């Protein structure tokens, strides 16, 4: 079983990203469970969502405190909040940022960091507004190549199934992002 945590800000589509990813994984025949941080929804507050996946039925029905990997939809959250809390040593972090993984030295020392400019891609494809781009589909495209956990084609299928509008633009963004991931040059950190 793998456990993921997604971090974003209100309006970026974080909860939908976890749902989309769950649908994509489900389409690949995996068992999935996705949920938002349980709580009161406050507009504009940082948003956290979770995802479990497994090949066997998922029995755990509790919150995720020690995820295997992170998806960070807004790089400004790094530093502003403790995004890596509970992340297993050597765990994967995918950050939406135009910078390279080495630009996050504190993280790359302990985890395997990748980046993708999902914001730039989303804006190019007209997703959301330039001030409030919706980056969830782009980052999932990047996640597919970066993690190898899910195929881009099933992410695309999930978008077709779940996204109510701008389907083609979202697919194009996911596809472009899948080719734009920047990984760490340093040798792999030891996985726990």
């Amino acid at each position: 079983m793998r456990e993921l945590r997604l971090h974003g800000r209100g309006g970026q589509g974080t909860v939908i990203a976890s749902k989309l990813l769950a649908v994509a994984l489900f389409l690949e025949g995996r068992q999935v469970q996705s949920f938002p941080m349980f709580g009161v929804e406050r507009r504009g507050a940082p948003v956290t969502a979770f995802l479990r996946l497994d090949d066997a039925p998922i029995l755990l029905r509790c919150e995720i405190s020690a995820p295997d990997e992170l998806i960070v939809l807004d790089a400004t959250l790094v530093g502003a909040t403790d995004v890596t809390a509970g992340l297993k040593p050597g765990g994967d972090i995918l950050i939406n940022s135009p910078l390279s993984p080495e630009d996050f030295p504190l993280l790359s020392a302990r985890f395997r960091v990748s980046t993708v400019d999902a914001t730039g891609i989303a804006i190019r494809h007209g997703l959301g507004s330039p001030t409030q781009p919706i980056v969830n589909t782009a980052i999932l495209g990047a996640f597919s190549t970066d993690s190898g956990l899910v195929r881009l084609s099933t992410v695309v299928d999930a978008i077709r199934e779940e996204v109510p509008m701008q389907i083609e633009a979202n697919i194009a963004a996911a596809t472009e992002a899948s080719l734009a991931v920047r990984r760490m040059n340093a040798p792999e950190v030891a996985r726990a």
Partner: protein
Amino acid sequence: MKKVMVGNHAVAWGAQRARVEVIAAYPITPQTQIVEKLSEMCADGTLPARYIKVESEHSAMAACIGASATGARTFTASSSHGLVYMHEMLHWAGGGRLPIVMADVNRALGPGWNIWTDQNDSLSQRDTGWVQLYCETNQEVLDTTIQAFRLAEMLDLPVMLMLDGFYLSHTAEAVDIPDQDVVDEFLPPRVSRHKLDVNDPHAFGALVRPDSYMEMRWLQQEAMRQVPRVLETIEADWNRLFGRSYGAVESYRAEDADLLLVTTGTVTSTARYVVDQRRAAGEKIGLVKIKMFRPFPTEQLRMALAGVDKVAVLDRNISPGHGGIFAEELRSALYDLPNEDRPQIYGFVLGLGGRDITPAVIDEVIERTKQGTESEREDLWVGVNS
């Protein structure tokens, strides 16, 4: 058709497949998505039902009562303070023998204001004459919603089904939406015995004197007595059509166990995980899930628990001044077992107001039960350092 969906949407799809005719509901966190989805379905024609907008839960239930009395298949959903606000009307539905089905998203009661899960909202409606069914997965939620109508309409009893706030209501997982034609085979249109009909006027809910009131209550109790048997046939039918069944009481890896956990709702899943681990380590530990709380499945529980040494009940609820409610009811259910068969019952109170119940918490329950003594078995709190 399988879809990844949250528990709240599983409720809505269940109601849709059951072809409900009238819905009157008022939104409340964490139930709101049910109301939203249903009103969406009513608006876009997916569900050709009459959606009655109301100004409160009390009115919602009142509207449901009126609708159900006319013979319509009637559905509502609520949670927490909304449900508690309905209390008076719940008695009217129960005593009026109206087969209304309601989904309650279990949520704690304030104050302190709390939107997270526990079972005090529904358990405090214990004596209103409603059947109560607690669900563990989103699939079970959807299936139970449909089954509830058949049960309700066969026995003229209202049915409340429960799903844990957030742990099910807001958690997305794969759910099979059964085909409509098969559901139609399972659940025929409602046939009502007493019908509010303007063309055949009768007085409903009118004065009943001491010479008849008890008979009505006796009949209500008689119908409640039938529930376990009827539910069994319903589940058998469901299993035949869809290959799934749950049971009013389910034993999991309970064979030859000397310690059994008793759980309800989503805690059951996490407990299964712990049981699997313990079994792998060679421990004789299993669990018994209680799905049905009203009527209380005394017979099934006696069968499931007789002869076990120790039973640990996980109560995500509290009856202040007494203890965990399932534990107390279980105690009285097992009291009449012969001495040698009667297990020691450890009542744990945990997870109130949405406090997370992790495998570690369940491990603590198991350890404390194992070490437990004869004198300290009731009202054991987990996670409170007093």
